[in-house]
């Protein structure tokens, strides 16, 4: 039932609001502690990329429950507000504004899609709202402009492509021909540009026999597979993900393409559970980070195992990389708030103070330590290996893993990735760490 508002109450409310606005203008530093910490989270809850977005949300719910059971952040409980990236960028931009203006969120996690991040990051500048880019991979964000309120709490496209390339060059240096089959959208095209720039610099003369970009969300790759069977490339690169990667591997495996060519799959990790034993062994696989279930030496093994076990217990599956990226963003949020509150002598930070706390922040993920550089980009190690089977998991995991230090495979601050990749020299291979046996 709507409440009637008396004229006196309205006037009193207006007076109180004006007073508080004046007060706020005169004392920007005095920030009252809220009753809850509101976190806006953009993720895919519909469409093909919900294979990433839904598990990430599940991981977030799990971790927020843990945090709230332990007393919250800065003594207040955390409350997430989820927004679906599925309907597209225009919708998301409106939702971002709604989260800030109507829901009053204190921080935003955005997004899975690179297009979403490219749309949300300028909004973080405009609305001065700290925004953690928790999963998107485009290198353009911090290479094409400064964003004082945006921070990426994981790696990005360049290290995620360069690390598998270096691994391939170390383990199969004699390849002469290559074909690419990527999804026909921004990531598929951008990742190929990054790979090509790096490959031409590190191993000039490799012949690209086919560049295939089937329609995004394709369900059939028969023709592409036939063509690659006929061309017999030494190496086939695919940065595809989700159902498309599962379909590609199954169709290619059934027709023995994986017997003829070595596949390089930088985003394989998220699909390996679905593939199970259907994933052939001996192919190069990546995880968009270092969070493999058989990580050879996680920084905090107990914390890593606890997260994996809790997630498995609740959802009957292993967490995939978006879950780990979400966990990293949440760990960064905890560290950032702690730093901001400490800097303010126990007081609650305003938006500017919170953003300041993230600049140069170092925080622990379950597997390693991540540092947010001065440009906002996170430095996350990359682990690449060869697909193999063990008794521990009913799906493929990497063997002969190489841990690539983030700084080695990330574009230096102030440079653009493609330009930097073109400057790489073959002697860079000498710096690649030795594989970890097993």
């Amino acid at each position, binding site marked *: 039932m709507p409440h009637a508002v008396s004229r006196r109450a309205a006037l009193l409310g207006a007076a109180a609001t004006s007073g508080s606005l004046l007060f706020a203008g005169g004392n920007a530093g005095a920030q009252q502690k809220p009753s809850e910490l509101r976190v806006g989270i953009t993720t895919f809850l519909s*469409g093909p990329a919900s*294979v990433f977005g839904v598990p990430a949300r599940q991981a977030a719910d799990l971790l927020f429950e843990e945090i709230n059971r332990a007393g919250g952040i800065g003594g207040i409980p955390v409350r997430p507000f989820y927004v679906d990236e599925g309907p597209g960028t225009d919708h998301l931009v409106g939702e971002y504004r709604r989260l800030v203006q109507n829901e009053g969120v204190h921080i935003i996690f955005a997004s899975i899609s690179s297009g979403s991040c490219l749309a949300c990051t300028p909004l973080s500048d405009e609305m001065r709202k700290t925004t953690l880019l928790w999963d998107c991979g485009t290198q353009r964000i911090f290479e094409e402009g400064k964003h004082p309120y945006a921070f990426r709490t994981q790696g990005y496209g360049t290290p995620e492509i360069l690390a598998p390339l270096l691994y391939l060059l170390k383990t199969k240096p004699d390849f002469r021909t290559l074909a690419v089959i990527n999804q026909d959208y921004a990531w598929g095209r951008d990742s190929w540009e990054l790979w090509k720039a790096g490959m031409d610099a590190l191993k000039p003369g490799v012949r690209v026999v086919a560049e295939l970009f089937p329609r995004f*969300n394709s*369900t059939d790759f028969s*023709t592409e597979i*036939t*063509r690659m069977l*006929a061309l017999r490339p030494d190496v086939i690169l695919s940065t595809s993900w*989700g159902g498309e990667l599962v379909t590609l591997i199954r169709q290619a495996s059934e027709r023995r393409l994986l017997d003829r060519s070595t596949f390089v799959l930088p985003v394989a990790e998220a699909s390996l559970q*679905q593939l199970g034993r259907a994933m052939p062994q001996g192919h190069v696989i990546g995880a968009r980070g270092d969070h493999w279930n058989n990580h050879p030496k996680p920084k905090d093994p107990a914390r890593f195992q606890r997260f994996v076990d809790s997630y498995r217990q609740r959802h009957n599956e292993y967490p995939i990389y978006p879950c780990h990226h979400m966990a990293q963003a949440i760990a960064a949020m905890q560290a950032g708030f702690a730093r901001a509150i400490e800097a303010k002598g126990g007081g609650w930070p305003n938006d500017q103070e919170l953003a300041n706390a993230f600049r140069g922040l170092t925080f622990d993920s379950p597997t390693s330590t991540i540092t947010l550089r001065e440009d906002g980009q996170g430095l996350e190690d990359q682990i690449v290996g060869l697909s193999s089977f063990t008794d521990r998991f009913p799906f493929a995991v990497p063997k002969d893993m190489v841990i690539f230090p983030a700084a080695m495979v990330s574009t230096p601050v102030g440079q653009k990735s493609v330009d930097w990749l073109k400057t790489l020299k073959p002697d860079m291979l000498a710096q690649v760490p030795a594989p970890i046996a097993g």
Partner: protein
Amino acid sequence: MGQWFAENGLLIGLALLDGLAYAALVFMVAVGLNMVFGVLRIVNVAHGSLFAIGAYAAASIGLFLASLGLPPIAGFAALLLAAALVGGILGPLIERLVLRRIYGQEEVLQLLVTFALFMILEDVQKLIWGVQPIFQDAPMKALGTVDVPFGEDVIPFTAYQLFVLPGVALATLAGLAWFLRRTLTGRVIVAVTTDKEAAMAMGIDAAKVTLLTFTFGAALAALGGALASPTTSLVPGIGAQTIVLSFAVVATAGLGQIEGAAISALMIGLGRSIAVYLAPEFEVVVPYLIMVAVLLIRPQGLFGRLETRRV
């Protein structure tokens, strides 16, 4: 020219094999859509959902049969059972509860209602099957592969792709042609398609015919999905992709044309495959380029008829 064929002839031959299988799957969905439009005069956007649900149901039944220890070949029974269940249950439900209320209404309203239905069914799929890829390829694996000679090399194709998909599509086409032209029920459907008012005046129960046709169309969409399920991973959104391509086939053929749908599906399937070999950057647009080219020359579609407006 002769030299070009000598160099690329074998590749084009391979492309034809791929295109044939692809066309077969597209045809299965498009022909159901076309039949439904012919009788109900509704462009049913939710047809793509029936494809997706048919695929999911086939995979679930197949996995269940496998868990009972039945041989992989039993997966073929799962494909037919899924199509029958989805068509037999969802078809009448949708026709009775939703479509019957919008016959004869404005086309925009019909599109909006079926689109809403499509969105609802997409969410239903996520509720039941989740968002992670599901696959059940036992029927495809059971038949193994066939090595097709390619110069001094061989190219493995799955027997399922080479024989089952085109075979089922051909059988469907022949069966439909026989059913519509040689059986009383089929002729009644053709009569309602041609002139509903005249058919009703002759005592045909048009409501019963629309129910039957929609159920049959829904079963065909579900069969298309079931046939596709052993070859692909099932994820949210597969229905949307299918319906867009099916519309291209139907528009190229001319709404209401059965044999036309087969030929259009073949054109689009082969066009797409050949593009992958000769100009892969055009793969995505080839089906729509064919559609636009046909519609510019024949707005009623390749096999559609110009209708005089009745007053």
